[in-house]
Each structure stands twice: as structure tokens, then as C-alpha cells.
């Protein structure tokens, strides 16, 4: 059996096991073991490869960023962010829908909080939107789609995983995601504005400068976490893990002593959640290195290059990137986390095609976001649909404008890499 066929069997095995509801960790591990079997490799090298994958210094930032976000949530920041968003955009037509989007953009500044945004904020905002006569399926679809802004806006956990696997600077990636993240939020607000005008949705509140000032003052401390992380890294003050540790200390201080809402038992629970949320991801990243090494030895990347060269008949960098992003989108419909599983397979191909890895990092994160609202995984749609008590198919249908929006946005980003590479270049200069 050729190594390539062995690698194909390993990939097929991973997919099959995932379909049979075997946990991602075990499925990938089984794939790695089968790869070792087919290639006659030394199984004992597996722990070494996993340890070196997990030991990447940038990965240490992951549990720390998650902890900082958890501490801010436990400190009660979500209500303050919502209140500030309401004061800013609640007076627009379809105000509550706009507030939903802007709150998600604010939540983007706190890693690991997309669940809090979706399940926490969504559990209150979706019923409130229904009460305000917004269609239930639209309320769920908007909440699911807007939760996807979070991974784009720094700090972002998919970007940490991408940086760990590719070795690209995390600070540069965070900067690269900033403009696309804000534009994605803006594009969703434009869709809401159009629908609000068409369907006659009313404003949610009245715009008052003193209200903006008052709620802004209450929310401003929340923005300290992304400021420490992104600012510290971009200015070269901190490494990613140091930025994470300082953000944790800041978030602890704010929640415990300024907001006075963090108890000892609350702190313990947040710590446990951070350990639990990070653990599985860290192991999957470790395994992804072993998977990547096995597939590279089996010449899968060269095979992928040949396929893309065959499919993309015109010699165009954009079309090649598009083909790779399409592959990521299709894989993202099933794989979660997408990046550590797919990237080791396509990274050598990206390097062979001389693709800008920072630009592609942002496109990969969009593929992750699309996967969250596309069946069969569609985790964001499922959660939002359950809160709204609406059938998933209806939510999927109501999500069409936002889905078209993000696809158009993705195409624009592929065609205009400057939207993501401009800020990192300025910072580098």
C-alpha cells in the first residue's frame, strides 16, 4: 500500500468516527495511530511530537486569555456592554437588533466569551426581540451570526491556534483581524438596517449623549482586557503569554475590587472552566502536529498542490486561495476545532503557493465562523434556535441574508488582502 493511500484511509477513518459521534480527540488519535500503522513509523515518537506541539509558547496564552474573559464575565461585564451598545445604537430603526450586533462586537474583545455571548446574552435578547415583535427565526439567526464576529476581533482563540500551528506572529494576526472584524459587524448592521426599513421595526431607545457618557463610563473598564493583550503585544511590551497573565491580573482586580462581584467560589469556578475549556484544545493541537507530520511524510501536501493546480486552470493566486478557502469552509462544516485539524494538512500547500499566511489566517477564521452557522455542525444556529424555540431549518432560512453577507465579505477579503494586511504592515514599519 502506498503511503498516500494509507494517509487517505487515516483521513477517512477520522471522518467516519466523527460521523459516529466519537469525540474529536479520539477520532484524531485513531487517525494518527492508523497513520503510524500504515507508514511503519515508530509509535513511541507520538508523545514526543504531541508534547512539542502542546509546548508551543504561544499556546500558553490560550488558557490565560480564556481565564481573563471568564473573570470579566463573572464580574458582570455583559450587562454593562449591552447597556453601552444600547446607548450607542439603540435609537436606530430596528434598535434591539443593532444592539445585539454591537454587543457581540464588544464581546469579541474577550476571548472564550462567544458562549457567554450566545447562550448568556442570547437567552435574554432573543426573547426580548420576540417580545418587541421581531420574527423569532430572525432573532435566532441574527444572534447566531453576530456571535461569529467574536472570533474575528482580537483577542481570538482560533487565531491563537493558527499562530501555534503556523508560527505566524500572534500580534500580527490580531491586528489583521481587527478591520475585517469591525467590517463584518458593520455589514450585519447594514443588513439589519435594510430589513428594519423594509419591515418597519422601531427604535429601541432614544439617543442621549449623557446616556452614552454614563453607560460608556460603566463599560470602559471592560475594554482594558483587549487593550492590554493587543496593545501590549503590538507595542512589543509583552509576549502573548505575558499579555495573558497581565490581562488575568487586571480582570481579577476589576471584578473583585472595582465591580465587587467576584466571590472566592466564583473565582474557583472560573478557574475550573478555563482549565476545562483549554484542555481538550491543547491536546488536539498536540495531536495535530503528529497528524501533520504523518501526512507530510505520506506526501499529501504535494498531492493537494497537484489537485489544486488541476482544478484551478488559470494561473491566479486569488483562485488558488479561493480553492483552499473553499476546502476550509467545507471542512469547517464538520470539523470543530477546524484550524488544528485542517491546517497541518494544507500548511505545506500554502507555503508552496507562497500564500501570505497572515492574510490566510483571517480567511481561515472566517471559515470557522461560517462553519458555526452551516449544517451539519451549525452549533451557533442550534443554540440560538433552541433559545428561540424555533426549528433549525427555519433559523437556517432566516439566516440567508447574513450568510450571503459573510460570503460576499469573504470574497472581498480574498480580492483585497490589504484589508487584513494593512494594520500589521503599519505596526511592522
Amino acid at each position, binding site marked *: 500500500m502506498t503511503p498516500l493511500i494509507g494517509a487517505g484511509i487515516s483521513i477517512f477513518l477520522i471522518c467516519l468516527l466523527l460521523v459516529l459521534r466519537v469525540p474529536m480527540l479520539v477520532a484524531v488519535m485513531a487517525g494518527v495511530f492508523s497513520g503510524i500503522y500504515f507508514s511503519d513509523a515508530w509509535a513511541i515518537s507520538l508523545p514526543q511530537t504531541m508534547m512539542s506541539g502542546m*509546548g508551543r509558547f504561544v499556546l500558553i496564552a490560550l488558557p490565560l486569555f480564556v481565564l481573563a474573559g471568564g473573570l470579566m464575565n463573572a464580574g458582570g461585564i455583559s450587562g454593562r456592554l449591552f447597556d453601552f451598545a444600547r446607548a450607542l445604537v439603540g435609537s436606530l430603526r430596528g434598535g434591539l437588533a443593532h444592539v445585539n450586533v454591537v454587543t457581540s462586537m464588544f464581546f469579541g474583545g474577550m476571548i472564550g466569551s462567544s458562549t457567554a455571548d450566545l447562550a448568556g446574552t442570547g437567552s435574554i435578547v432573543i426573547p426580548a426581540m420576540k417580545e418587541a415583535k421581531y420574527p423569532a427565526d430572525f432573532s435566532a439567526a441574527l444572534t447566531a451570526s453576530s456571535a461569529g464576529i467574536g472570533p474575528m476581533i482580537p483577542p481570538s482563540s482560533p487565531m491563537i491556534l493558527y499562530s501555534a500551528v503556523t508560527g505566524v506572529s500572534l500580534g500580527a494576526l490580531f491586528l489583521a483581524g481587527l478591520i475585517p472584524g469591525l467590517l463584518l459587524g458593520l455589514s450585519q448592521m447594514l443588513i439589519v438596517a435594510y430589513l428594519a426599513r423594509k419591515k418597519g421595526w422601531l427604535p*429601541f431607545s432614544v439617543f442621549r449623549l449623557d446616556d452614552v457618557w454614563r453607560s460608556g463610563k460603566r463599560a470602559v473598564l471592560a475594554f482594558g482586557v483587549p487593550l492590554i493583550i493587543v496593545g501590549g503585544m503590538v507595542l512589543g511590551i509583552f509576549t502573548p503569554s*505575558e499579555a495573558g497573565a497581565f490581562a488575568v491580573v487586571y480582570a481579577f482586580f476589576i471584578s473583585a475590587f472595582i465591580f465587587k462581584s467576584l466571590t472566592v467560589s466564583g473565582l474557583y469556578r472560573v478557574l475550573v472552566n478555563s*482549565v476545562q475549556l483549554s484542555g*481538550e484544545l491543547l491536546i488536539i493541537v498536540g495531536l495535530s502536529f503528529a497528524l501533520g507530520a504523518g501526512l507530510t511524510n505520506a506526501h499529501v501536501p504535494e498531492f493537494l498542490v497537484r489537485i489544486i493546480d488541476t482544478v484551478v486552470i488559470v494561473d491566479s493566486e486569488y483562485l488558488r486561495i479561493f480553492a483552499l478557502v473553499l476546502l476550509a469552509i467545507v471542512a469547517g462544516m464538520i470539523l470543530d476545532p477546524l484550524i488544528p485539524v485542517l491546517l497541518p494538512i494544507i500548511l505545506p500547500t500554502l507555503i508552496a503557493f507562497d500564500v501570505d499566511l497572515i492574510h490566510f489566517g483571517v480567511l481561515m477564521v472566517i471559515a470557522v465562523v461560517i462553519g458555526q452557522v452551516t449544517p451539519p455542525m451549525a452549533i451557533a444556529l442550534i443554540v440560538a434556535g433552541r433559545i428561540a424555540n424555533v426549528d433549525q431549518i427555519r433559523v437556517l432560512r432566516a439566516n440567508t441574508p447574513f450568510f450571503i453577507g459573510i460570503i460576499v465579505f469573504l470574497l472581498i477579503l480574498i480580492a483585497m488582502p490589504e484589508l487584513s494586511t494593512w494594520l500589521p504592515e503599519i505596526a511592522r514599519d
Partner: protein
Amino acid sequence: MKNLSEKIEEATKKLELTDPDANAGLLDKFINRLVEAVGVSVLVMIVVVIFANAFSRYALNYSFSWAEELVQMSMPWLAMTGVFLSVRRGTMIKIDYFFEKIPERYQPAIAYFGYALNILILLSMAIVSLEFVFLFGGDEALYVGLPTGFSTSALVWGMAGAAMAYFAEFFRVWRYKHLSKRPGGAKK
């Protein structure tokens, strides 16, 4: 309006602070708390070491040479305690969509196959890791001075622990099914 933001604050706090073991039995609670304590200690140690190292570098122009190595060596323990807790609480990442489409009468057999496979694969990983620890675990880390086996043994404990957690879960499910067939129904 103010009420809505208060409700949101309450809901997100609840999500963050709810104890997932609130309804668990005494033994389950004890095991989970023990592993939680290890994970939390490692995480707190990582935060303190990184913070102290960065602070000392800026304030005292001095950094601890062992800090980075100690943190890297602790990461597998953090990861393994997290995985163990995820298995115990059923929050491992998996896809339910396709499984739910399978006719109900086939679902138990596939679920049992899943349990058996999880146990087999995780135990295999634990055995491979144990061999690795026996072969290379005695090497000393450069700055910390601890044997590297301190770090790699986390893989052995974590994978074996996760396999045992799946075995316990499998036994619980099987016993429940078995008892439910008896007159009088299942006793949870």
C-alpha cells in the same frame, strides 16, 4: 431597558458560575474536585510565574531562567486535567447531528462501539506514553532540574484517567439499560 441589561448580567454570570456537579453523587464529586484542584493549582501557578517573571524583568531588570521551562512542563498537566473533566462532564467536542439521523434501534450498538473505541484508543495512548516515560523520562530539564518524566507522565495519567472515565460511563449506561428491562424499571 435597565432591567434587560441586569437580566443579561445575571444570565451570563449563571452560565459562568454554575457548578456542573451540583447533582452528582458523593464519589463523583470527590473525584472531580480532586482533579479540579490539580488543574486549578497548575493554572494559578502558570499565571503567577509568568506575571512575576514579566514584572521582575521590567521592575528589577531580572528574569527567572527557569520560568519558561517550568510553565511549558506544566502545560500537559493543565491539558490532561481539562480533558479528564470534559470526559467526566460529557462536554468533549463531538458531532451529534449524524448520530441523531441513525434509526433509534441502531443507536445503542453504535454508542457502545463508541465507548469501546474511546477506551481502547485512550488506553493505547496511555501505554505508548508510559513506554516513552520509561525510556526518556529520566532526562533532566535544563533549568528546572526536574526529570522530564514529570511533564510527560501527565499524558499517561490523563489518557488512562479519561479511559477509566469512559469505562465508568459505559458501565453506568449499560447498568441503567439492563435494569430498565427488569420488572419495576430502572433505578438511576
